[in-house]
């Protein structure tokens, strides 16, 4: 989550209070806590061929990574991975479009806004498995087959849409409406104002919503398990693997996911930075 804090340019020369060091200590401990077990699984994913899921390491190898793509016990991992990516992309697109629209709609009071707000809160706090259970029951009564792009997509949207709406509240709260007023005064139509003023200014926040929705969907288990039908997504496949057999392959998957995340974040960061730079350059030219 990228949060822009208040700027404290005047305070730079001030000496750090003792609370700074105390909190820095807490932060470092939290980092150790967060990454400690992760480092262990990164290490164990290179476990030797005869090693198991715990220490000690018996040599090193990359067999567990090869296992992921080799046909055999893990054969479903690449397939379910691509399913998860597909579903997460669709969820993310739908969430961005509807949550951004709803976030903009909430900027003015309208009759019934309370109902929509509390429906979103209820949907957000609903225990996940129950959503899937309810939708599964509904499909059964109607005699429909559950599948990825019907019931599972729907079940995930009940979680990503409220999340997106709440994230949009934070984004929209920082938005200065005088930009829009200025556009209108210059003769922009509602569509032009949205296209050339509102959306570009909100874009970093919108990217955040998209990434958040993608992550929530990609990692979703409890809502999906009863609504997916016969074809598993990656988290379901991983869960099935834990209950059947444990091998360092699971850790190899974790290492790969983290590597992928770092890559995705790096690319996004570069894009956002470039966007900011271009914007600063543009505003300098205008100013």
């Amino acid at each position, binding site marked *: 989550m990228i*949060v822009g804090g208040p700027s404290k340019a005047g305070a730079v020369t001030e000496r750090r209070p003792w609370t700074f060091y105390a909190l820095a200590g807490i932060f470092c401990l939290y980092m150790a806590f967060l990454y400690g077990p992760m480092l262990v699984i990164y290490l164990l994913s290179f476990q030797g061929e005869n090693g198991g899921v715990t220490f000690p390491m018996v040599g090193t190898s990359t067999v567990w990574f090869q296992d992921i793509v080799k046909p055999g016990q893990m054969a479903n991992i690449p397939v379910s991975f691509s399913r998860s990516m597909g579903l997460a992309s669709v969820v993310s697109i739908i969430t961005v*479009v509807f949550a951004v629209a709803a976030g903009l709609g909430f900027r003015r009071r309208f009759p019934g806004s309370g109902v929509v707000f509390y429906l979103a809160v209820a949907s*957000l706090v609903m*225990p996940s498995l129950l959503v899937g259970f309810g939708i599964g029951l509904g499909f059964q009564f109607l005699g429909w087959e559950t599948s990825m792009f019907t019931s599972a997509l729907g079940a995930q949207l009940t979680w990503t*849409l409220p999340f997106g709406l709440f994230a949009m509240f934070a984004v929209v709260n920082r938005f200065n409406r005088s930009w829009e007023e200025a556009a209108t005064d210059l*003769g922009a139509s509602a569509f032009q104002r949205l296209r050339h003023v509102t959306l570009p200014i909100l874009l970093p926040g919108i990217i955040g919503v998209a990434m958040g929705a993608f992550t929530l969907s990609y990692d979703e288990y409890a809502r999906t398990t009863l609504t997916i039908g016969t074809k598993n997504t990656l988290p379901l496949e991983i869960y099935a693997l834990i209950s059947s057999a444990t091998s360092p392959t699971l850790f190899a998957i974790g290492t790969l996911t983290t590597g*992928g995340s770092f890559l995705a974040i790096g690319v996004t960061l570069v894009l956002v930075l470039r966007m900011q730079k271009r914007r600063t350059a543009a505003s300098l030219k205008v100013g």
Partner: protein
Amino acid sequence: MGTTTASPIFAAERRMAWPRLRFPAWAVSWLQVGPMMLILSVLFALPTFLFLAVSFFDYDRTGIYPAFMLDNYKELLSTPSTWRVYVSSLKFAVIVWAITLGLGFNVAYFLVFHIRNSMLRTVLFLLCAIPFWTSGIIRAIAWVPFLGRNGAFNQILMALGVTQRPLEFLLFSDFAVIVTYVHLFTLLMIGPIANSLSKIDPALIEAARDAGASRWRTMTDVVIPLSKTGIALGSLLVFTQVMGDYFVVKTMSGGQSASIVSMLSTEIQAMQYPPASANAMVLVIFVAIMVALMMRVVDVRKELVK
């Protein structure tokens, strides 16, 4: 809104712009909110009413039958194990809430108020968020080799001479469950709280200090009241995640405890939909009461929607 002096930038595009439709403001809002409202009504509200109805149904080994009876609820509430699972889930929820709140608030405060370089702040926030991109299931079982008898933690403790023998209580215990929850959910606290904190004008804190308030007074009388929306939202998320947990208790307690949802999923797998529905309704009502209590303390809506 004067449109007479159209600027050349917009006017050039105006010819191809869409025809102008005029709606009242409330109708525009409804058009914008409508799609989300529709999806949530059909896919969340409707299924909830569905299992509310099914919870009163009759069932046997071959099917379920429409009826109106309270037997499912009576049976559920008169089983001691139901109460035991609720008490243990509530215990986990309260402990995890307290730890994630303390930890999340301090981390968020550090990042927002003490890190002065905004680039560094973004990088540190990303560091907090990156493990979130790894599957929650894998992050949960990552604790197994860490906490196990021959695990990394015991090795470190023994190397440091803190203990002679490996500690046994670390894994497959309530301790392991709490550690895993805190690991998984602290970010849900950090995000909303950091968002609230970053909206506080630093001048207010300076004013409090100039007026002679101690650090502690500034904290309790200025910072915490101004960040209560974030605290409430984070608490809501953490609390409901723990209450709705499916696999952490199952995998990390070593079969010693069950969660409400894993109890429920056993019934679903046995196709006992009416008792599962009754169980689901009780959980929904319980969570709804807790959330309503939290929303009473902090009016989240007033703070968020302005």
